């Protein structure tokens, strides 16, 4: 046996097989994309420590992540916001972290998705644990983890097959996800989570437009809707309005006392999801008391003629063009109100 010969054979076969694998997945429509993971979030969170009065932080759940587009915001205000919203999360732990662990006094936009914002303050509940784990990761991440992230970015940006995701989307193509997609008998008898595919692309600074496929392919969008339905129908926990409101208000007071500018935003939703929100988490019972208690500037999309007719392809988030429009119009409204005091003027 000649080791050198074996090495040459191994390198040759590895390169051939990986190139073939990459080409195959590209032919299937996959493109290189970043993973919206704790590392990407932590890099943005680190920017808050050096943020000035002019800076804007975006907190919330996926609606803020999808609907507020950083390029449009920057175009309108001259300031590129720091995107810290987390999908499937309550913004309360994130806001709490910013208020208590930084001295940031600029503008914070908090997106209010009623089902998540008013869900819980229980640390082990998903909507709380998920964002809190990112906060904890940011505080405890090692230099090795930071280095690992920076080294992985060029691979993620250039190779379609590098697609493992923290979310665990059904259409991920890492080996574990591919094995999970093999159909098999469900012995538990419990309802199965429907396939939940990735439906956005994210940039290095977490600008996150919806993918074109979601906006144009109805069958694909219906798959996402089915996932929302499963999550909502299987959620046995009632909202905890008082605890969540009180928790947020305490932090809001502290932030405003030190001169911070707090703005609440309700982003669009559509169809049966919107009807459900109106029925079980109504504006008058949840949003209005929150606005009153925080004494913050607040923007409910339905109050504005230019925003109220926007439709979400999968009921909860805007398509990329609509998100750009929404951002532009929202900023114009805010500027007209004078709530973005440090933005550029036209």
């Amino acid at each position: 046996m000649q080791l050198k010969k074996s090495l040459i054979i191994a390198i040759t076969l590895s390169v051939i097989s990986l190139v073939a694998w990459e080409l195959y997945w590209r032919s299937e429509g996959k493109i290189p994309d970043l993973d919206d993971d704790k590392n990407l979030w932590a890099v943005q969170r680190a920017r808050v420590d050096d943020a000035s009065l002019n800076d804007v932080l975006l907190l919330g759940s996926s609606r803020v992540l999808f609907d507020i587009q950083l390029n449009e915001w920057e175009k309108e205000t001259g300031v590129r916001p720091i995107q810290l919203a987390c999908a499937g999360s309550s913004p309360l732990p994130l806001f709490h972290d910013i208020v208590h662990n930084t001295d940031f006094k600029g503008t914070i936009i908090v997106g209010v998705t009623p089902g998540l914002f008013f869900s819980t303050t229980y640390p082990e509940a998903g909507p709380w644990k998920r964002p809190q784990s990112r906060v904890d990761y940011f505080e405890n991440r090692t230099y090795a983890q930071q280095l690992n992230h920076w080294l992985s970015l060029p691979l993620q940006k250039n190779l379609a097959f590098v697609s493992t995701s923290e979310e665990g989307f059904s259409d991920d193509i890492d080996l574990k996800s591919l094995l999970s997609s093999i159909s098999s008998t469900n012995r538990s008898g419990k309802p199965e989570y429907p396939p939940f595919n990735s439906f956005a692309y994210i940039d290095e600074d977490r600008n996150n437009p919806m993918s074109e496929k979601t906006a144009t392919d109805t069958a694909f969008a219906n798959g996402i809707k089915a996932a929302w339905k499963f999550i909502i129908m299987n959620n046995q926990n009632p909202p905890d309005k008082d605890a969540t409101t009180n928790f947020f208000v305490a932090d809001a007071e502290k932030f405003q006392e030190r001169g911070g500018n707090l703005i609440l935003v309700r982003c669009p939703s559509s169809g049966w999801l919107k009807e459900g929100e109106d029925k079980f988490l109504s504006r008058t019972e949840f949003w209005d008391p929150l606005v009153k208690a925080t004494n913050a500037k607040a923007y409910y999309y339905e109050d504005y003629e230019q925003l109220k007719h926007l439709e979400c392809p999968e009921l909860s988030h805007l398509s990329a063009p609509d998100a750009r429009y929404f951002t532009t119009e929202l900023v114009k409204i805010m500027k007209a109100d004078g709530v973005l005091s440090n933005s550029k003027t036209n």
Partner: protein
Amino acid sequence: MLLFASYVFYGLWNPPLVILLWISTIVDWVAGKKLAVEENQRKRKMWLILSMVVNLGFLAFFKYRDFMLDNFTAVVNSYGYGYQAQPMDIILPMGISFYTFQTMSYTIDMYLKRTERARTFLDFALYVTFFPQLVAGPIVRAQELITQFYEEKRATINQFIWGLFLLTIGLFMKVVLADTLLSDTADAVFGSTSILNGLDAWTGTLAFSGQIFFDFAGYSTCAIGIALMLGIILPDNFRYPYGAIGFSDLWRRWHITLSTWLRDYLYIPLGGNKHGVVRMYSALMITMLLGGLWHGAAWTFVVWGALHGTYLVIERMLKTRIHIKITPFNGIFLALLTYLLVNFTWVFFRAREFSVAKSMISSMLFLNNESEKILYSFDIIKVFSVITLLFLCHWFMRNSSLKELSLKSSSWVLGIVWACMFFLIAISQGNGEQFIYFQF
């Protein structure tokens, strides 16, 4: 250069804790230097005690403080005192159990005059800090490693390529076999709050038995491979342990550098097998109990060690009464029996609470009538396939080695196997899960 790289490597995790490494290094270097020249027995003993106190003191403070405090609180409160301990929330320095044991072996060997003093401080510092094996072993003896630092090392081309091959195998074991194929099933089963169906409980336990092997042996193989690429030879840490016939054999094959450490520095000083059966069995039990505690500051680890100690005692008792000639036919049966019994110990190793372990054991013994199925059929098939291959591989390789097998293989076969492993590592990607043994 290597020493600097090793400190940078450790510092990338937590820079301030490099100071612990320095203290351990300086104390043991000074103790070793004194032990090399000091003839007064009492003073020699004092230097040895100093080294032990510092190293074991680090371990006690960083690893066992909360455990001891919890137990103290529980005992005090059982007498009706309302004592509330203040948790210190101390970070556990990565690899502390490994490097403290390694440096202690140096001073103990110096005390017993079994090894020579390291020639220079830098050689000794590199022995303590050598990055490939710093955080999870193999735990190397001074005479095995320090002497390799005396001359400038450069790997031969064959050493470099073989080291690269070992690194690939180690990563394959960790990324593909442990993390991709087995970890989720083990996590789902041990994380479940339900009373599990017997098949699910067995699948989860078997998955963990494979995961812990591939994870730890994977790390060791990476360490050995990286060291070899630098021209440094490290000892084997695993020798197909699930092909073991009996528990003495198992411990000659599993985490070899720890089991030989415990044998040489604990079991033999406690009397070993030279002072009658009672003392031998006591020494065996104490060694295994402390071996369990070495893995983690929890009673579940102590029970894990106690079970292994009990298995070893029973095996020795049976060996004096029953003599079996091992053949390939009864051998594989005995190896399978050993492996199945080992699985019961893994339950205590993996379960974070006794209630989970108890529920798992009763499920594995099919004692729960109303139980829940949580795994999909594919998960069960996947785990049983991997574990069957693992067991058969260990059985057929038990008297051989990877090197031997490779030498018999053609370059093409080795190259193709190598490429397959690399391809699977690349498409698995992994999510940066750290090695399980880093926490010990």
